[in-house]
């Protein structure tokens, strides 16, 4: 049975499971990106999260903000593509929104995720409906906020992120490399929304105890 709060160890477990899923799905993410982008999303996310895993092996963390600062800085340095500053800013803002915290309940997790998503939107100068990772992040946040408790919250968020990912298929891209394709981006899932859905799947399996 899952706990009602996520400890530092639980958050580390979430990050490690995210790394595994992103590495497993790297070629699928790259296929999605080859259709409408520059075919590097799988390799970039895999490289970034491999570096995150190495950082987690090398160091232990006393607070959520110290942990997420390390994760964010690693992502902005190691990913290489646009998902570096986007996911990096997510984790940095996630951490700074919870100064000194050593665990997060469902409400605190939702507040941290909301701060992180604000960072993505600001960094990408983007909003919902533009066929980006935000189309998976926002539904996940809303599901988390609406649910009762941590386990139910991350489970609902994972389902909402997957639905948000699928909903990017008919959209026309107006941001990022895919925007060069305009109407030809229709009919393809956005790779950033797919990696976001994997990160929520990892949350469900670890923080939600669904594994």
């Amino acid at each position: 049975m899952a706990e009602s709060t996520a400890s530092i160890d639980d958050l580390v477990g979430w990050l490690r499971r995210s790394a595994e899923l992103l590495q497993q799905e790297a070629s699928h993410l790259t296929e999605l990106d080859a259709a409408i982008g520059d075919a590097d999303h799988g390799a970039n996310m895999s490289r970034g999260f491999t570096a995150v895993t190495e950082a987690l092996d090398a160091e232990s963390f006393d607070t959520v903000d110290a942990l997420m600062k390390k994760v964010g800085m690693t992502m902005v340095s190691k990913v290489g593509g646009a998902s570096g500053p986007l996911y990096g800013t997510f984790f940095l803002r996630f951490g700074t929104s919870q100064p000194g915290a050593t665990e997060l309940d469902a409400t605190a997790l939702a507040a941290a995720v909301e701060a992180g998503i604000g960072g993505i939107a600001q960094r990408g100068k983007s909003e919902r409906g533009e066929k980006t990772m935000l189309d998976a992040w926002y539904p996940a946040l809303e599901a988390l906020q609406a649910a009762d408790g941590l386990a139910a919250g991350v489970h609902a968020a994972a389902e909402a992120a997957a639905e948000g990912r699928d909903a990017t298929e008919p959209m026309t891209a107006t941001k990022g490399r895919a925007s060069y394709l305009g109407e030809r981006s229709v009919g393809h899932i956005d790779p950033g929304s797919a990696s976001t859905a994997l990160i929520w799947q990892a949350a469900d399996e670890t923080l939600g105890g669904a594994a």
Partner: protein
Amino acid sequence: MTGIVVVSHSRALAEAAVGLATQMVGDGGPVIEVAAGLSETELGTDAAAISEALERATDEQGVVVFMDLGSALMSTETALEFLDPDLAERVHLTWAPLVEGLVGATVAAAGGADPERVVSEAELAVEAKKRHLATVTEDD
């Protein structure tokens, strides 16, 4: 002297652009730092490396940053958040094209121009190219 930072996905591209620009000024040019590629050969941009390059290149007057495309812009904006706010205020980002703009900026900075002036010279460089090719087309 106003400093310059070149942010690119490719280290080879950035270094070649710097080589072309410094031909114009010999040893008397500004500090030009490169933050490009994840390594010598891997393509990508790194916000932490950009913030370090900005710290090295910024003098009292400030620094002008050239970027190639895509994540170079977002990584540079991310890097600004890592800087001391006093230093970040002296960082000027320009939309000027990397090659033409960098040449114009290097010459302007070597002549003692402040960052605002360096940016305007860099952004004018694209106008000279446009005018030249417009004339060629009319002559045809």
